[in-house]
């Protein structure tokens, strides 16, 4: 008598693709063209201070609604890239770590307090802080990376973090969601305070 084993197909459904999934073996580092895309993609995710601020931009954009919901996440990567360009060119900016920590504090506080400034002011604030984040990324680039692939990965990851923030921010449609959003803003602000304390100590 044959015995039916539930989920046997599911195991094969996992094993099959695992066998067929054959990414390129990055066995040899090519000169000047190391794994730039992945490094760029992972770089903004590697620091919680960056992640908090970038998600907060999305949260605030969602809270403010149109047109800020798309203008802020467009503004941030472009100005961040400008900051990254300054960092790459070796232009010194003072207080980078303080600026990054302040971005978490102020953007988190804006979400927590549901601040609704004029669009130009909100965009200027976001743009101002983006310079610090970009500069930090620009100066921390490891050597031997493909510049273009690094840049594309770096911008893509930033955009995805904003999108994640906007996605989370859409809970504003419900009454409980608005409270949750303000609580999320408070968490970001607290994170900013922690990073500020660490930068000053």
């Amino acid at each position, binding site marked *: *008598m*044959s*015995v039916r084993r539930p989920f046997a197909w599911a195991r094969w459904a996992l*094993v099959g693709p695992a*066998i067929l999934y054959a990414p*390129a*073996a*990055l*066995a*040899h580092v*090519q000169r000047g063209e190391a794994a730039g895309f992945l490094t760029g993609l992972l770089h903004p995710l590697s620091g919680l201070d960056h992640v908090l601020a970038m998600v907060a931009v999305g949260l605030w954009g969602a809270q403010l609604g149109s047109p800020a919901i*798309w203008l802020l*996440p*467009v503004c941030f*990567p*472009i100005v*961040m*890239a*400008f900051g*990254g*360009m*300054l*960092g*790459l*060119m*070796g232009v010194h900016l003072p207080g980078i770590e303080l600026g990054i920590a302040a971005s978490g504090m102020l953007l988190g506080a804006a979400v927590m307090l549901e601040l609704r400034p004029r669009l130009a002011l909100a965009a200027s604030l976001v743009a101002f802080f983006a310079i610090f984040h970009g500069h930090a990324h*620009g100066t921390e680039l490891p050597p031997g990376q493909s*510049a*273009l*692939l*690094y*840049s*594309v990965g*770096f*911008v*893509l990851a930033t*955009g995805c973090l904003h999108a994640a923030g906007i996605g989370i921010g859409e809970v504003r449609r419900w009454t409980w969601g608005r409270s949750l959003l303000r609580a999320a803003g408070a968490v970001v602000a607290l994170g900013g305070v922690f990073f500020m304390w660490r930068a000053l100590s």
Partner: protein
Amino acid sequence: MNRGASSRAVLGLRGVALATLAVPALARAHLNSTGMGPVYDGVLHFMLSPEDLLPVAGLALFAGLRGDAQSRRALFILPVAWLLGGLAGSAASATSGSPFVSAAWFLLLGGLVAADVRLPQGATVALAVLLGLSHGWLNGTGMGDVGTAMPALLGLTASVFVLVALASALVVSLHAQWARIAVRVAGSWIAASGLLLLGWAARPR
């Protein structure tokens, strides 16, 4: 099928799977050549060259935002210009592209998409011609003489055609405001990549 035969079959399948995993095949870590001939090498070159891929995507998105008439012109003019530039480049001596030029194209096309600038049709055509000629030229200079380069250039040109067709047709079909905004956001990312590339090119060594 009885239970013994069934478990033998399962064991056999697992044996095949394990043997497949254990085969020590060559890593083929370098994707410089498809092994399928120069036409496919040209296709692959384009697909693996973001400095070519992103400006073409940028132009396709921009033409798509401007409507079907401009998209149709970009669809046919860009690949033809690319092929002509490539043929001219293959007849010239080898040169290497400047990252400043790539950065400029990223900034220009990404900026046009992000700002949703309403350019006249002639300007879009001029952009397609210039982009095709300059990038085609750079591709062509690294491909040897015209006879050798021609099949690879045809593959490359076909890829340009396909990308413009897919991307611009997708954008033309978008009517929801949020979807068009998403396209503009993509444009801003192209421009941001251009800014970073500019910084990389200008960095002190």
